[in-house]
């Protein structure tokens, strides 16, 4: 098939930064603080100090952002958190 002589083809590349996704843990009245610290250390590899600060943030503020980054990894982390029965979700970073 011949190309129409009047057709112009323009090619180009466009790149934009992906909006990161936040992994959010919400407070609940059941999970024990010591357990939550342990799970944050296990899933994210955080040291005990960072895991404790984040746990207290969840407890006192009602929620905390545990991690931000690409969506696929954020989904993986939320699934891990839910497997450990922690109330967690993902949201687009503002």
């Amino acid at each position, binding site marked *: 098939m011949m190309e129409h002589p009047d057709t112009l083809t323009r090619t180009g590349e466009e790149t934009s930064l992906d909006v990161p*996704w936040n992994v959010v843990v*919400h407070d*609940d*009245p*059941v*999970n*024990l603080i*010591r*357990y939550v610290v*342990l799970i944050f250390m296990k899933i994210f590899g955080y040291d005990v100090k960072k895991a404790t600060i984040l746990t207290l943030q969840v407890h006192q503020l009602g929620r905390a952002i545990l991690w931000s980054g690409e969506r696929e990894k954020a*989904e993986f982390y*939320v*699934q891990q958190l*839910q*497997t450990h*029965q922690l*109330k*967690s*979700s*993902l*949201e*687009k970073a503002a």
Partner: protein
Amino acid sequence: MKAMPTLEGGLRIDAEDASDWELLRCVIGDAQGCEHDLASRLGAVIDEAAGGLDWNEYVVPDLREEFNDALAQVGAAIESAIFHAEGGPGPLWITPEDVFPWYSSFNQARLAIEEHFKFSSTLNIDLETLTPERQAALIRSEFYSDIQNLLLKYVMR
């Protein structure tokens, strides 16, 4: 009932009579006692903008299977211990290798009790003022919490 850490890094729970075994058995019924199971409740936290529909289709069934497997394993271990003790005094062993299904089961039970009875919304609960059903649920929830604290302290370190 008595509970103590073992030299192997586990926990031993000694039931003293049939009522202790009944209390341990309740963990399974409590965990399954909610209209919406835990997997569905966790799935509901993911809103539509974050892919909640896909989450319910692909992730929630895996969560449900994981939670049910833990309950099945713990239920079988309790029944086996009751069988060996012939319903009387006898031990129940929680090894470090099996600790997560145990912790998971007690946690599922406590989450379900809270979901159903909403004890956390009342400050300074007076047992005397509760109905027998709520009294029993609160006592079981506190018992499960005590065992979880022992698991965290001695087994999940």
